[in-house]
């Protein structure tokens, strides 16, 4: 009998910290992606990105997406972490870890998940520009 995939979706306030390594029974490949705040946006220096989520829907959509990815690519596990609130430059705001028996489906699943998330999951980001922040002080 096929084992049900492990699915986990968690939102956290502010930057995401480091986590212990993920292990999934039967997996021979574990691929992790971290989204980190870049220092510029539209050519301007930023201090941070502020994330806003329509929480109940974003959680449902991410969980559905994780299950769809597990079905489509035969994954053993999908773990999703996303920040809400302010995340400074250089910090991690999004982490996706997928596990599968072999590396090819795990790598394909990564790109598919992130592209779909950017279209369908109600999370918005607003850059906190350095010059605006300094003018406000």
């Amino acid at each position: 009998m096929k084992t049900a995939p492990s699915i986990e979706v968690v939102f956290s306030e502010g930057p995401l910290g480091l986590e212990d390594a993920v292990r999934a029974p039967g997996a021979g490949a574990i691929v992790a992606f971290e989204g980190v705040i870049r220092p510029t946006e539209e050519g301007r220096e930023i201090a941070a990105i502020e994330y806003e989520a329509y929480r109940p829907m974003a959680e449902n959509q991410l969980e559905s997406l994780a299950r769809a990815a597990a079905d489509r690519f035969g994954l053993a596990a999908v773990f999703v972490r996303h920040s809400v609130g302010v995340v400074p430059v250089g910090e991690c705001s999004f982490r996706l870890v997928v596990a599968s028996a072999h590396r090819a489906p795990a790598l394909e699943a990564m790109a598919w998940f992130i592209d779909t998330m950017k279209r369908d999951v109600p999370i918005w980001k607003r850059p906190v520009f350095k010059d605006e922040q300094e003018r406000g002080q």
Partner: protein
Amino acid sequence: MTLTVRLFGPYADAQGERELSVDLPPEPTVSLVLDTIGSRYPALSPLMSSTRLAVNNQFVPPSHEVREGDELALVGMVGGG
């Protein structure tokens, strides 16, 4: 009927409010709700071509009929990650 529609991100920024109250005939379709918002709220109209209406935390087809008490939100132009 009067519907309350929640606004987030660029929608809240454009309108300067977190929700809208929209008067409509009973049980309007999702298309009618979106068209009505686009025509009554000029600040939002430039965003409406890429906007979907979430009903009770889900995307539904344009022909779906909205009921009293449904939770509504404008969703589109997202970009998490």
